[in-house]
């Protein structure tokens, strides 16, 4: 059996932590010893996941400008700082999917608010913490969850695809601007997963052909281990 790399003491904030990939990631990172704070909109779900995963639950909506600093305050306060931010919360847009020509402007705005502006604002609010972690040699990483829809022009995925393309490009620019400060940014496409969002987008697809969120979370955790500075003594200890 392969050695599980640990993330003991690494402080991670995850948005969209009560379903799909986000939930799987909360569990995966907790299993690896990370201290996790997660954000989601529904108070009852947040309470359940916080208690089951022994993680810090934060009720908030990343698409709401007024929630951002409240989220940042709680994340940094509960964790004592943030080393890794995972911008995972996403809005698919109109369900069922429709062509751009039939997409309401308000729906597009909502998608951009959740998938682009939210990650921008939350990253900006947590940038001080992330840079502090980098200066202290803890490593510092922002993972933005992207999609193949950010690259390929899939009909009917207009709002989502355009927002994810914007997020991916913003990730590259953040990385150019802040790698000198030691904060790294990556956009990761976890692949087609068996999640509520995927079911909403493509209700007819066979779940058996899809990746499980747990597998995607494992891969993502491995990537986080790869990108943080080596702390073998800490992370291989079990």
């Amino acid at each position, binding site marked *: 059996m392969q050695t599980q790399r640990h993330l003991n003491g690494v402080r991670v904030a995850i948005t969209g932590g009560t379903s799909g990939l986000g939930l799987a990631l909360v569990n995966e990172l907790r299993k690896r010893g990370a201290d996790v704070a997660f954000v989601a909109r529904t108070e009852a779900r947040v309470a359940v996941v916080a208690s089951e995963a022994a993680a810090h639950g934060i009720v908030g909506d990343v698409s709401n400008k007024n929630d951002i600093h409240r989220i940042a305050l709680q994340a940094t306060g509960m964790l004592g700082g943030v080393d890794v931010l995972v911008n995972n919360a996403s809005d698919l847009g109109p369900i069922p999917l429709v062509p751009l020509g039939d997409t309401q402007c308000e729906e597009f705005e909502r998608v951009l608010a959740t998938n682009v502006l939210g990650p921008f604002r939350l990253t900006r609010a947590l940038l001080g913490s992330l840079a502090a972690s980098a*200066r202290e040699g803890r490593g510092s990483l922002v993972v933005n969850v992207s999609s193949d829809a950010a690259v390929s022009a899939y009909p009917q995925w207009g709002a989502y695809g355009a927002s994810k393309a914007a997020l991916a490009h913003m990730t590259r620019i953040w990385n150019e*601007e802040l790698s000198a400060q030691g904060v790294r940014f990556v956009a990761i496409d976890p692949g087609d997963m068996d999640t509520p969002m995927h079911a909403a987008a493509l209700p007819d697809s066979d779940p058996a052909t899809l990746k499980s969120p747990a597998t995607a979370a494992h891969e993502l955790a491995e990537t986080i281990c790869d990108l943080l500075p080596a702390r073998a003594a800490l992370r291989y200890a079990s």
Partner: protein
Amino acid sequence: MIAADQPVQRPRTARLLHIDEHGRMRHAPRSSLVELLQPGDLVIANDAATLPASLHGRHSRTKQTIEVRLAGKPSLATRDVQLFTAIVFGAGDHHMRTEDRPLPPAFNTGDALQLGELSARIEQTFDHPRLISLRFEATADELWRGLAAHGKPIQYAHLSEPLAMWDVWTAIASEPVAYEAPSAGFAIDWQMLSAFEQRGIHFATLTHAAGISSTGDAELDRRLPFDEPYRVPVATEQAIAAALCAGRRIVAIGTTVVRALEDSAAVYGSVAVGEGMAKLRLGAQTRLRVVDAILSGTHEPGTSHYDLLHAFADKAVLRRADAALNAAGYRTHEFGDSVLIERASSRYSCATRPPAGAGVFPEMQGLVARATPRILRGFSPPASAHVVQESDRLPPA
């Protein structure tokens, strides 16, 4: 001076009065700060994020309306996260000058306070009706949730619009432990940090729980600043040691940084990694061990921040600076203009003065004669000289 009444951290028109080590002054746009610093300088800022430390609520026994302003803490450690020192006002809000705010009801130890969803109990009362310590009856996570939902940044009457948290978080805001913004840091943005790097200026941070700047009561104000916990990261200790050995300047962004660094040096002989409690009151009598220059807001005479500037420049120079600030219409308070004060040359003893020309032949310093660590030479263990400076008038919460 004119009160800066808009919460803009970096207005394009922000100005800076530069006072050099000989007391010479000149006006500059604050955006030119990078050019006023020297390659090799080590700039140290306070990266504390600001708590929404103002909580409106009710004193349960008398049903009276109160505003609690969290003001201090015995430690940064998370183990006692519920315990705070606080200043309490009666009815009213920030639109009323703090001097005019009514007193809170007379408190007894154990009294319950209801602050939004948060419940707290008075842990201790002191010799002033506005000063208490309180304990929140909540887990750490519940407390953060309650503060996020109900707390507002502490604010004074010169700003009429309610402050949002983004108004008071500096660009580098990290752990939320400050009660009021470490506002000298408003001058810093990411562009400036890049410019530092390009000019060979080093940058490091510490985290200092900046306390409240005014209580509205002259007697309480005289006790400010309260003891403030701070934490120095490993990288900062190393950067300071390297700068001291090489005789490079250390520039503090704000009074809280001076207080933390000088406290650490007074206790440990040099700035040491880890947590400490800043108790020193700095002023004209202080012989600085570490900091060579300070970027600060423009403070009004009579405040503890203003007193601290006397550790850098003599009274006559600061008086001239005041006149210059007033004549040129500088803006004051947390969103106002800035001063950059280099420590007066007379305020270096021979042992602590940076060696002239240090850094010109850095390679020689290791080979020919090791640069003298400034601190260790000047250090004597904490003795009576420091004891008289301690602000031990606030009983430990």
